[in-house]
């Protein structure tokens, strides 16, 4: 701690240069926090996928539908304890930018599968009874100020109604929470019966099926049995675990992990040179001062540690500022990815990267400072 004022003063010897170096690191770590945060949020959703669930989709493409009748056939497969179904509604509220994760489901089937959702009993009953009833996640309700009793229109970019138009009206009869999966509180669920009766096309079909298995160790066998059941039919199925399903769903968007990794690699690679050259220049300018430190008794190793400490302080402080900014801005992504806080693992990862960056950029100037000859340095050689 007693060396802190010395390190701090050396860091601010050239204020403008230090400010620009700091800013470049802050921006890099802000980018890291946001991108890696999104990546981690997606990965976390995949990692936390329910091991008891299988997802059955059309083998041709995930976007192709399946006959509703498959649902009852799958229920008879040994080891299956429940089956539900969902479809992609593609709805938005008032404006296309207000996209809503909306799905038609059958409440009773959905409830047997969706154990992570919490909804008061009376609200659930109201949903079962109300044809146009919908239940919405707490975050979504808060976002648009929706409350029970409200009539809410959603415009579907896919489904048109028999009477014409793509505007669908729903009565909000319940608000659910999902304490363990906060992102699910952005969902909008409504009655499949209402949806299926009112839509112009695709009647009697569903997007995908969600299968609950009694024993997760039997998942592979059950998945094979389901796919075998519909082999050589017009709608062959491909059954995956929920985790595999989510991974392939994310790949529809793109390989997020690959993209994020490549962007961050490019950012940190250029940062390595920018910060490294800045620290190197700073060391060169301070050669006489470093020689004075050695003259008064600082050892070679002591001077090396001082220069490295400067680099660590610069990188870690800037990284913390960048990560703090990312943590503050991250909730703004809630609408897009449904996550409200930057995962702590990303913050910890950021600090580790900052220390590695500091060591990588500081090692060369520190080593040069260590090897500095007092006599040559004082003589200006």
């Amino acid at each position, binding site marked *: 701690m007693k060396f802190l004022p010395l390190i701090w*003063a*050396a860091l601010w010897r050239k204020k403008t240069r230090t400010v620009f170096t700091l800013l470049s690191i802050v921006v890099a770590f802000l980018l890291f926090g946001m991108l890696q945060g999104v990546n981690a949020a997606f990965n976390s959703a995949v990692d936390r996928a329910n091991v008891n669930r299988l997802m059955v989709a059309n083998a041709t493409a995930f976007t192709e539908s399946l006959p509703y009748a498959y649902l009852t056939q799958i229920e008879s497969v040994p080891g299956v304890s429940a089956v539900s179904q969902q479809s992609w509604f593609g709805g938005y509220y008032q404006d296309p930018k207000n996209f809503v994760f909306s799905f038609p489901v059958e409440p009773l089937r959905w409830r047997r599968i969706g154990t992570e959702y919490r909804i008061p009993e009376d609200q659930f009953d109201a949903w079962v009874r109300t044809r146009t009833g919908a239940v919405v996640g707490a975050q979504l309700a808060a976002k648009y100020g929706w409350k029970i009793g409200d009539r809410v229109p959603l415009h579907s970019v896919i489904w048109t109604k028999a009477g014409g138009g793509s505007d669908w009206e729903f009565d909000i009869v319940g608000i659910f929470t999902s304490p363990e999966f906060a992102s699910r509180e952005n969902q909008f669920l409504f009655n499949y019966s209402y949806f299926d009766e009112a839509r112009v096309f695709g009647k009697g079909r569903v997007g995908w099926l969600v299968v609950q298995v009694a024993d997760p160790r039997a998942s592979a066998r059950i998945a094979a049995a389901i796919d075998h059941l519909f082999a050589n039919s017009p709608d062959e199925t491909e059954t995956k675990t929920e985790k595999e399903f989510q991974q392939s769903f994310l790949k529809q968007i793109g390989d997020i992990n690959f993209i994020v990794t490549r962007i961050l690699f490019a950012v940190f690679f250029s940062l390595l040179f920018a910060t490294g050259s800045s620290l190197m220049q700073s060391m060169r300018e301070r050669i006489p001062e470093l020689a004075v430190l050695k003259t008064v*008794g600082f*050892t070679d190793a002591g001077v090396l540690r001082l220069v490295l400490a400067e680099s660590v302080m610069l990188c870690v402080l800037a990284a913390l500022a960048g990560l703090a900014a990312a943590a503050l801005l991250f909730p703004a992504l809630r609408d897009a990815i449904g996550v409200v806080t930057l995962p702590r693992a990303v913050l910890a990862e950021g600090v580790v990267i900052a220390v590695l960056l500091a060591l990588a950029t500081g090692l060369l100037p520190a080593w040069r400072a260590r090897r500095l000859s007092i006599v040559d340095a004082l003589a200006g050689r």
Partner: protein
Amino acid sequence: MAAIISLRNVVKRYLRGKQSVEVLHGIDLDIETGDFVALMGPSGSGKTTLLNLIGGLDTPSSGEVSVAGVRIDALGGARLARWRARNVGFVFQFYNLLPQLSAQRNVELPLLLTSLSAAQRRRNVQAALAIVGLSDRAHHKPSELSGGQAQRVAIARALVSDPTLLVCDEPTGDLDRATADEILGLLQTLNREQGKTVVMVTHDPKAAEFATHQLYLDKGELVSRSTKAVA
């Protein structure tokens, strides 16, 4: 008195490109405790090289350098650095203060290597600044001080760890006559009243008059020595 500094057959060679240049040729020298020695001679005579060897900033190519009974020519890197921190105070022509630190922080530098507490360090720094008459400039940066004041701060930094030996390389070379005399008077006081042994390189015969002994080097050899009667 016993010799605090003893050099025996000291040779120093430097490599200039591929050529080896001998700067000091077999120097034998004894400096007694409490002496104030002025090292004089023309440019390139080896004064600063000799001073660097005495102060442990450099090591001889051959020969022995003993200071206060310690063979410093046999000490390596970290041990030599620690020896310097305990035994030698350095004063340079251009003060060599760290520009971003206040006078107080500059003086404190050698004490950062000790186990003294922050409070003890502060007390010692205040005492050193008081000795050089700069207590009221403790929080000023070097750029806010005159040349004479900056050199006083450098002397305070040299004194603060209470070394037995002060090594000064042209300490008045960058100062006007009046300020130079003040600085030399201060070194003289430290020598007389605090018993510091002072070895000073200078070109200036007037500066050399403040010393008790004058040594002349020419072409890497000690050519004469004179001693002044202490007033």
